[in-house]
């Protein structure tokens, strides 16, 4: 299974190498966030009552990872819609490659891209703003980011296969992405002191909020029960669910 996934990933890698400009730009994009947006937030959070502990930079930097994860994975489905219409996906589905391998292979590129981008952010934050980053914290946070990217990419791919049409897929993604992003508190932490109660409760219903807390915890090395165990549990649960949903969809017929 891993071999099949690696074969598909190799194909994707060749495509990326052949047209590397979009990839280069997408890797540069998080730096814009870090340089132009984070300083603003740092200033703002000093004034804000009961903001998350650990210093503003340590809060914002891991949150950027989640932001990258969301942006990268949401649109991976487009690639699948292309392969669906030119018949490549059908050819893959006639091969004995396991359906999970197809899903893994298609999702892997996005995972790699996100990990590279996040690493750039961490390195830059460390080099320019002297963030007290630990090796374990970085690795753990990247791990969480990678797993989440895989999960959300699998969802995007599966959604594309279910929607089967570009306009429908675009509509679903663009409608869903913004509330999911805002409610996760990655750009602007949603705390009881800052947000009205209903908004706070809503944000706690968003699994991404818990995972954002998890990255902050791993990044700062502050391994408290709530973010680590509950956040980690939620992450594993949605990973398993997306894997199941994706494999099932690949297994079903796709007209």
């Amino acid at each position, binding site marked *: 299974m891993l071999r*099949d996934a690696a*074969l598909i990933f190799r*194909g994707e890698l*060749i495509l990326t190498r052949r047209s590397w400009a979009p990839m280069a730009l997408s890797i540069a994009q998080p730096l814009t966030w870090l340089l132009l947006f984070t300083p603003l937030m740092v200033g703002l959070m000093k004034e804000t009552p009961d903001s998350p502990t650990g210093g503003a930079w340590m809060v914002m930097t891991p949150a950027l990872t989640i932001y990258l994860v969301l942006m990268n994975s949401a649109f991976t489905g487009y690639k699948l819609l292309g392969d669906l219409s030119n018949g490549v996906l*059908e*050819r893959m*589905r006639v*091969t004995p490659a396991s359906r999970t391998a197809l899903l893994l292979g298609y999702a892997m590129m996005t995972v790699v891209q996100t990990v590279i981008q996040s690493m750039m952010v961490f390195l830059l934050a460390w080099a320019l703003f002297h963030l007290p980053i630990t090796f374990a914290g970085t690795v753990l946070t990247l791990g969480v980011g990678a797993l989440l990217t895989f999960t959300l990419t699998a969802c995007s791919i599966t959604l594309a296969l279910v929607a089967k049409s570009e306009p429908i897929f675009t509509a679903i993604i663009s409608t869903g992405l913004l509330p999911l992003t805002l409610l996760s508190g990655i750009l602007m932490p949603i705390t009881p002191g800052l947000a009205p109660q209903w908004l706070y409760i809503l944000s706690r219903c968003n699994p991404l909020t818990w995972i954002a807390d998890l990255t902050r915890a791993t990044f700062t090395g502050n391994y408290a029960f709530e973010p680590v165990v509950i956040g980690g549990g939620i992450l594993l649960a949605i990973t398993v669910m997306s894997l199941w949903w994706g494999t099932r969809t690949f297994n*079903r017929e796709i007209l």
Partner: protein
Amino acid sequence: MITTHGLARSFHVDGRRIDAVKGVDIDVSAGMGVTLLGPNGAGKTTSFRMLTTLLRPTAGAATVAGRDLLTDPTGVRRRIGYVAQGGGTCGEHTVREELETQGQLYGLSRAKARLRSGEVAEQLELNGLENRLVKTLSGGQRRRLDVALGLVHSPLVVFLDEPTAGLDPQSRAALWKRVHMLRAELGTTVFVTTHYLEEADDFSDQVLIIDHGKIIAEGTPEALKAKVAGHRVEVTVPIEMVQTTAAIAARHPQSTRPSIIGNTVRFQVPMGDAMIPHMIRALDYANIPTLSIQVVQPTLDDIFLLLTGRSIRENPST
């Protein structure tokens, strides 16, 4: 090698049900060359997509290459090759990359996949194009690549959905030669659909004629053509005399099923050669300046005409 019982599939489009395939029974032995022949929309592609595990049948059962289609789809996939009607290649990859990855996805080692890619590229006259991006290939070259991808892993059974569509006569000949070699050397079972009646006639051990989702006739090309007893006679005359000519033809006691296409009168007789002198005398007597008169051996299209009253040729492929 392929057995089906009541294989059926319907689709729902805008609340309407389309019965694309309505209970097909097929029995293909190992090593045979079989053609599924039928007009557009007859259900050929739908049948193939069911047999290659892409579509779930709404009813019926099938075994392909000794594996049950419904309970062991992976087993089926391992043993077959499928070339879809519309192909399935990625324009940004090179020919070599596509072939090698395909081989490896079927479990060949890297070295073996490389070797086989070279072989099929050679056989389908793609040599010299290995390093080209697929998007730079011509339509016919691309079609040959599709076929090569279906053969790279030396499957037991290969399904070719209109493999020669868009190929020039040389490439068509080369492709059929390759398919014949496959059957001779490896005993591969080959199941094809085609619109070209002559190809079906030349290539097949068995022809299945499908119309409106049902197999309406099957047998060797010879046996099928023998069903159309006798020959077809075609008389071409000046257009204004075509009705008179038809009347003369109809008067002959042994002629059946007369029809008029343009300025040609066609009819069916048991012995074409013996009919010609009579016909010429009758036309002379009526003062009709005959332009041509010929006896045509029955083709597979005549079978279709006999069975359905329609011609496959009348619906050129879309």
